[in-house]
């Protein structure tokens, strides 16, 4: 964007403004674009979810407002704007007011490191992946603020449960990404995408693979297990069924959102859908190549880019469109899976939820990290790190051996951990009735 604005202002129009003004204008333009895109995504996703979940529940869903109900989200927005904004008298005014802002702001900030196409990332931080999850952990503070300020016991309980859930499931999410970071050796999101060029086998592993943009990490055992764990953790982070205790209307009124109405409730709603969109998008980026797909790299190689300053600007637009199309297709596919899971599964109890996160997902991610280490050792290391027996093998043989070994380790660990977890959960329900015999004899007689 800096280059585009620079070319526009300095070369085409002949002005010669200093570099920092161009940078300021380009950043403002990108920010405005993102602030327009995020709510539009959220509106579309609410409509998409309501139609999809209705079809799964043998209903039709919103189909009155506009053609096939497409303007329903706008009607929802109008409703939320016009509702009265009630603040309880005993509530802490400023904290009650700021809580929705603290929940929404991080979701907007997370767009800063999401690449939409080749060369189309707002900012390529060298620690982009960690930035993404660090910022997402800020919204938990907003939830606590909402619960504390409402002076309502249900809100407080709901906030504590919601924060316990979000904080517990951040760990499997980040640890599963750690395996991918080990595979690529970088925390930058752009480089993670670029390492996924190839054809079912990443180019970084076996050089010489034809580049069809399909060398995704999902096709490796490490990436597959990491994706499964990450997707479940993302369901819990975004408070979707089966982890939607915080907004389970039948259980705890509306949890931390009980005392909010009108636009403040609308902000919580917006934050939830935008966060889910971002989690689906980052899953697509890390495990499914993001904007990588057949054709994008070929198009971008002929476009204007830092590596190729005399490209053709038409290819920029084509590569951009194709890249954004691939990213959005993958993201909406994952969001459909999230809606599908919502239609299929009942809700987990809060203690089942915590047990599942801490006692099953985290050991699984730790095993995955060991697998990632084995993968890196077999594929990338050489005599200077002490691995000499792989030197004489062809790269494709090294890839094959790494694939088989990590597949065995991951599948074996999954089976073992699943058995242990199932046995532990089954053993919990048992209560020794004789223990209660004496203490309850008096009350029952």
């Amino acid at each position, binding site marked *: 964007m800096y280059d585009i604005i620079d070319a526009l202002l300095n070369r085409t129009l002949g002005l010669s403004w200093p570099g920092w003004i161009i940078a300021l204008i380009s950043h403002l333009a990108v920010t405005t674009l993102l602030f327009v895109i995020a709510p539009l995504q959220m509106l579309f996703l609410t409509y998409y979810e309501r139609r999809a979940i209705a079809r799964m529940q043998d209903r039709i869903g919103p189909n009155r407002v506009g053609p096939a109900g497409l303007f329903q989200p706008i009607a929802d927005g109008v409703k939320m704007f016009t509702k009265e904004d009630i603040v309880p008298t005993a509530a802490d005014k400023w*904290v009650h007011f700021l809580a929705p802002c603290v929940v929404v702001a991080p979701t907007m900030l997370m767009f800063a490191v999401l690449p939409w196409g080749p060369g189309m990332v707002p900012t390529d931080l060298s620690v982009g992946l960690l930035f993404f999850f660090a910022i997402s952990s800020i919204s938990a503070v907003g939830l606590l603020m909402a619960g504390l300020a409402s002076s309502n016991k249900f809100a*407080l309980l709901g906030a504590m449960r919601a924060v316990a859930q979000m*904080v517990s499931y951040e760990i499997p999410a980040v640890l599963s990404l750690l395996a991918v970071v080990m595979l690529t050796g970088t925390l930058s999101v752009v480089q993670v995408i670029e390492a996924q060029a190839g054809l079912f086998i990443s180019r970084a592993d076996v050089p010489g693979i034809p580049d069809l943009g399909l060398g995704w990490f999902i096709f490796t055992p490490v990436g597959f297990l990491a994706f499964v764990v990450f997707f479940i953790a993302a369901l819990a982070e975004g408070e979707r069924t089966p982890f939607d205790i915080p907004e389970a209307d039948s259980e705890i009124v509306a949890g931390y959102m009980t005392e909010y109405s009108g636009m403040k409730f609308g902000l919580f709603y917006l934050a939830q859908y935008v966060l889910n969109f971002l989690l689906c998008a980052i899953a697509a980026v890390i495990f499914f190549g993001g904007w990588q797909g057949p054709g994008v790299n070929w198009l971008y190689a002929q476009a204007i880019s830092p590596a190729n300053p005399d490209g053709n600007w038409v290819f920029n637009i084509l590569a951009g469109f194709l890249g954004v199309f691939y990213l959005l297709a993958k993201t909406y596919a994952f969001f459909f899976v999230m809606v599908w899971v919502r239609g299929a599964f009942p809700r987990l109890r809060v203690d089942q939820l915590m047990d599942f996160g801490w006692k099953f997902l985290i050991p699984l991610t730790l095993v995955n990290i060991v697998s990632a280490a084995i993968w890196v050792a077999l594929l990338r290391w050489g005599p200077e790190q002490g691995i000499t027996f792989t030197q004489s093998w062809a790269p494709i043989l090294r890839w094959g051996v790494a694939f088989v070994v990590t597949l065995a380790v991951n599948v074996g660990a999954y089976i073992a951990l699943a058995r242990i977890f199932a046995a532990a959960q089954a053993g919990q329900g048992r209560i020794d009735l004789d223990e209660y015999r004496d203490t309850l004899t008096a009350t029952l007689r």
Partner: protein
Amino acid sequence: MATVIQIIFGLIAALVVGAAVMVVTVRNVIHAALWLIACFFGVGALYMLLEAEFLAVVQVLVYVGAISILILFAIMLTRQVTGEGVRQLVGGWRLWLTAAISALLFAVAIVPTIISHAWNLPAPPGPPGTPEPLAGVAELGRAFVYEFLLQFQVAGVLLTVALIGAIVIAFEERARRRRVLTLAEEYELRKRLAQPPPVEAPAGEPAPAPRATPISEGEAHQ
């Protein structure tokens, strides 16, 4: 460009110091915790300005995303029953003494030492405008497994010990709270209370076997 950086640094410093002053002076401890979060953000921004990006992100992740939540949870679980009338700061001459000590420490000990010391800043590597070689995330990772391996492992052990210790200290005994029986369990218990309890033989018979089956059947039907 230099003035822009100075203005940004001034704003961040104002945020950090202002939020810190609010932390130590507000009455409501929840508000103090929220000002503390603002101060942590300011410190993170300062790290970003000092080009320590990984540290800035870790600051936000650990301090804002975890320690602040811990503090808010602790405040939530330890609300005073007497309400907000409790004095938050020590009273009278002790408060002024503490303030005087802090101010004197700052004005007499810290600031003159900083200003009068001759820091041997390294010479710039080239003409002004050349980027300096900065250590980044990759060097950090290598440092943790090569030079600082022992410290890294000890930090891991420390965190594990702290985790277990915190759980043990704040643990609430399960046995103190009796679990409410489900309907099936209560029915089972009533049924068995209706039969007279078996007399224990002095030879110490093992637990009667026929009783084991109804338990498992009853619970299997739940």
